[in-house]
């Protein structure tokens, strides 16, 4: 298990306030892992600070969203023979100390999700957002045939099979990086597990609480799920031949 080559992929968009500190923490708690910061078209100093902090930086020329940033990470990992990709947000929401637990979970699953709702920590969603998450978790628990409580979590570890799948195809659309990618993984017969984690308060940015925003989120999540379910399995070639 110690022989696994681990790559931490950190999608970052205008995170100059937190990226340096987060990289420091990751390096301290995971000395054996390599770190790739994918700068998703930031207009601030994110890339420079990340490089100064000692991470490899892949700079996307235009903003592609988390999906594009993560696929860059997966392709980097696939090209350089990494066995594990761990997605850690650059805003400091994810505790690098928990990565070891995610990695342990990979012994018996291809994807391990760090869940906010599985018992640890006090994160609670409210209102329509909560219903959306409950509904999503119900659907996914059925699809995956095991309990998944937090499918929209961005704190995930992916094993070799998942890296191969996601390097070829990783959705770039809204919620594609969470909802649709999981549907893809389930369709490809990958096993998905989750472990409870504590998420910290975001260093920057505020989660939305307004009812309109929540309603929009709910419907977009529903649409994303619906699309993911009815879509054909993508060809291995990432650019679809229309």
């Amino acid at each position: 298990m110690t022989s696994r080559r681990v790559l931490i992929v950190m999608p970052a968009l205008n995170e100059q306030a937190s990226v340096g500190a987060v990289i420091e923490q990751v390096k301290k708690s995971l000395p054996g892992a390599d770190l790739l910061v994918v700068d998703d078209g930031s207009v601030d100093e994110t890339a420079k600070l990340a490089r100064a902090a000692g991470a490899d930086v892949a700079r996307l020329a235009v903003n592609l969203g988390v999906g594009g940033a993560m696929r860059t990470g997966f392709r980097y990992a696939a090209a350089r023979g990494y066995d594990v990709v761990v997605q850690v947000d650059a805003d400091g929401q994810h505790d690098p100390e928990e990565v070891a637990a995610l990695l342990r979970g990979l012994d018996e699953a291809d994807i391990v999700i760090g869940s906010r709702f599985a018992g640890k920590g006090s994160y609670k969603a409210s209102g329509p957002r909560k219903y959306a998450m409950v509904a999503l978790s119900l659907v996914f628990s059925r699809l995956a045939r095991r309990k998944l409580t937090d499918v929209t979590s961005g704190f995930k570890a992916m094993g070799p099979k998942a890296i191969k799948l996601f390097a070829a195809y990783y959705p770039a659309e809204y919620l594609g990086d969470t909802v649709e990618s999981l549907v893809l993984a389930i369709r490809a017969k990958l096993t998905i597990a989750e472990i409870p984690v504590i998420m910290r308060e975001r260093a920057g940015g505020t989660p939305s609480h307004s009812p309109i925003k929540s309603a929009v989120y709910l419907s977009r999540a529903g649409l994303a799920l619906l699309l993911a379910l009815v879509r054909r399995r993508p060809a291995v070639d990432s650019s679809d031949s229309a």
Partner: protein
Amino acid sequence: MDGWRILSIVVAGLVLFVVLEMMRRRKLREKYAGVWLIVSVGVVVLAVVPQAAEFLAKITGVVTPSNFVFLLAGVVLALVALHLSTEVGHLEEEVRTSVEEIALLRCELEDAKKELEGRIAELEARTSAPDDVKGLPEADAVAKASSVRAR
């Protein structure tokens, strides 16, 4: 001949001319030109032979021929819009792939640069050592490497 017929023929001819001219100047790619060619030829036919619209309206059960033409126009425009939407999606995917590729290439470039610099430094350290390296193949390589760096 009625004024409206002349007008419609002129407009239809203009549409056909513009489409052909754009194709000729390579401003319209063949992939998209096909649809417009069919549309413009259809418009010309309908202008020259208004009975065609009347006939088509009769067999489809549309009371006024002009409404039939409107329906046709709406359907064609909707199809063109749909086609363009899929093309935009396709383009987005291609742009995304290219952007990712560029980012990865930049990563590789940086690695290669680091490695080369390391090697050059090593070579320089070796050549500045007192022992004579003239005539050895490394001497050539050093000269080349330093000239590359000087550029």
